């Protein structure tokens, strides 16, 4: 009887599925194709998590990133444990306090974890003040430890700054730089490419020549000169802005060509022509027929362009040409790691490198997934 029931139900649901498919828009078809790429979907989850955590770094970090802890300099990470803590009924996260000692033979300072004590992590605690969304004053933090105890999940730097907090704050800058720089170059690229592709003729020729010349001249010297042009006395915000501008100025040419090429090919599509012949205005042709049809490609291209920007920022800052302390970015953190000449002794300082790799990898996977999904001819 059960079997009979399922066979009776199956065709209906199959028909419904088919109908849903027929009435699915290109966006939802794209989403379906994208969801087939398991890795790309995971990459998106990771990116969302990264952005949520880094954009709210005030909340998620336990310490001020530029606060010096003289007692805990160059300290290795305190490993997070889960288990029973004295005085508490339920098992919870805890760390062992680190104790600084002098090595009996080499006389170097070193830390060891005092396994006899367990310091429980407390969640949603009050701490240093910050502003939620820049508006609401609050002191709430995601986690913290009682006063006098330490909780450096990724160790500390040469001056005793909490590396975990610095990683989050650095991520905020690095991730934003990538985003804004791509956004800026996208703006430049799409407007110039759009003008170029839609109007054609002389405007097109001029824009294309400029783009070609920009692509001919080696990027790095321009980059360097522009970066060197940032006056040393500028505020961090100004530096940051110039930085994104530099990245955008070098990055728009590729996007411009993509946009132009896509526009040119779409403009020749029969449906665009059909709209013109139906009496549609140019504005309508552009906004109803052309833009929606290349938006998905552009989104994919953008996603693939962000990692390049992040890597550029990291490299430039690493060379000391981009962002400089006290701004914290992943590139700045890595520069500090190198300056310390301590990679062998303090390997935890390289954690920002892992963050960069993870982010870039996630962007690349997500971008490739998007690109495949945007292409209706892919299988």
């Amino acid at each position, binding site marked *: 009887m059960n079997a009979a029931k399922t066979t009776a139900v199956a065709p209906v649901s199959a028909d419904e599925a088919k109908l849903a498919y027929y009435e699915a828009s290109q966006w939802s078809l794209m989403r379906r194709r994208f969801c087939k790429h398991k890795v790309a979907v995971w990459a998106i989850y990771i990116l969302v998590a990264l952005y949520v955590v880094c954009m709210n770094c005030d909340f998620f970090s336990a310490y001020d990133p530029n606060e010096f802890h003289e007692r805990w300099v160059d300290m290795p990470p305190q490993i997070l444990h889960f288990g029973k803590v004295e005085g508490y009924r339920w098992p919870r996260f805890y760390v062992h306090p680190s104790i600084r000692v002098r090595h009996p033979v080499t006389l170097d300072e070193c830390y060891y974890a005092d396994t006899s004590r367990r310091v429980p992590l407390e969640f949603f605690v009050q701490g240093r003040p910050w502003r939620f969304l820049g508006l609401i004053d609050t002191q709430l933090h995601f986690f913290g430890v009682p006063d006098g105890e330490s909780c450096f999940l990724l160790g500390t730097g040469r001056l005793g700054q909490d590396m975990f907090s610095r990683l989050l704050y650095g991520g905020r800058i690095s991730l934003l730089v990538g985003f804004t720089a791509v956004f800026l170059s996208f703006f430049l690229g799409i407007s110039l490419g759009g003008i170029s592709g839609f109007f054609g003729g002389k405007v097109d020729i001029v824009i294309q020549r400029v783009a070609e010349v920009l692509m001919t001249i080696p990027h790095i010297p*321009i980059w360097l000169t522009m970066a060197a042009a940032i006056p040393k006395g500028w505020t961090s915000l100004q530096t940051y802005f110039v930085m994104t501008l530099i990245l955008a100025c070098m990055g728009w040419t590729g996007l411009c060509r993509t946009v132009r090429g896509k526009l040119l090919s779409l403009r020749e599509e029969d449906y665009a022509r059909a709209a013109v012949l139906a009496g549609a205005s140019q504005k309508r042709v552009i906004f109803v027929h052309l833009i929606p049809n290349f938006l998905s490609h552009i989104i994919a291209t953008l996603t693939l362009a962000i990692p390049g920007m992040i890597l550029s920022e990291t490299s430039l800052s690493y060379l000391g040409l981009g962002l400089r302390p006290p701004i914290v970015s992943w590139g700045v953190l890595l520069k500090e790691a190198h300056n310390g000449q301590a990679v062998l002794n303090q390997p935890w300082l390289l954690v920002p*490198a892992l963050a960069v790799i993870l982010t870039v990898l996630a962007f690349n996977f997500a971008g490739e997934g998007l690109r495949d999904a945007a292409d209706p001819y892919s299988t």
Partner: protein
Amino acid sequence: MLGRYILKRALLAVPTLLLISFSIFMFIQLPPGSYVEVKIEQMKKEGTVDMSEVNQLISRYKLDQPAHVQYVFWMGGLLRGDMGESFVDGRDVVDILAERLPPTVAISVITICLTWAIAVPFGIFAAVKKNTVWDYLLTFIGLAAMATPGFVLALVFQMAAVGWAESHGATFDPSGLFSREYLGEPWSFGKVIDMAKHIWIPVAILGVAGTAGMIRILRANVIDELRKQYVLCARARGLHPVLVILRYPVRVAINPMISNIGLVLPQIISGSLIIEKVLNLETVGPKLLMSLQNQDTYMAAGIVLMQCVLAIVGILVSDVLLSMIDPRIKFGAK
């Protein structure tokens, strides 16, 4: 025919170069401050401000004149084969380049060869094994390699090299291209051997990202070509399946890559700048960085100009190569 084409292109390149060199010269002067100020600052720090030395510098290089006059002065020297003098080192730019170019070129050429040797077979392999475990594995490795910043790789490699040397009871200084005893020495057999011992680190680091990128491009190109009907036709002729792939789609897919060799030329000098800096190599890249930071105008302009010349030559080489290997372009069809 080809000769005339090259000549025509070369003549066209002259005004382009003039324009580019002028903009470069202006560009380098763009940042506030000049070498003179840097120098005075430096002397202040040392506590000995000797204005006569500074004045001599100014009069010698017309540093008090506007930038375009300096440019003409510089160009005049260039025509005589004199690229000016590095303010910082106090040596001729030509000499510095002569010293630093050979290792730079060596690193790049070895890297390019290695990249091709690895990327071509793997790219074809990934394309043929499309959507298999092998393909996914290669894709993942490739994307991961491209996601890793070069300087991070450099740090890790250095660490590994030092660690390895220590575990074998030897000391190894991974930075630089030469051991200390060969620094500043003229080229000799021993120096070349010594360079070979050091060169693998930059080559490996530079090769990783390039190889990964190339595998992905080649894979995409070959997959595109595999769909074409002429592949099916070749198969229908009874050709061996391996030959079918090597003779037709690969041949077509590799065309644009061969022609892109020309575009690699400028990278021979600058592409590896960051890594060279990290590894502290005696190559052109770090010199460029230093000269730009110190407003060492002639040094920087000399290097950048050389890059531009290489870029233009590279594009020419690409076009010529493409016309030589792709008959469609050779005969003026589309």
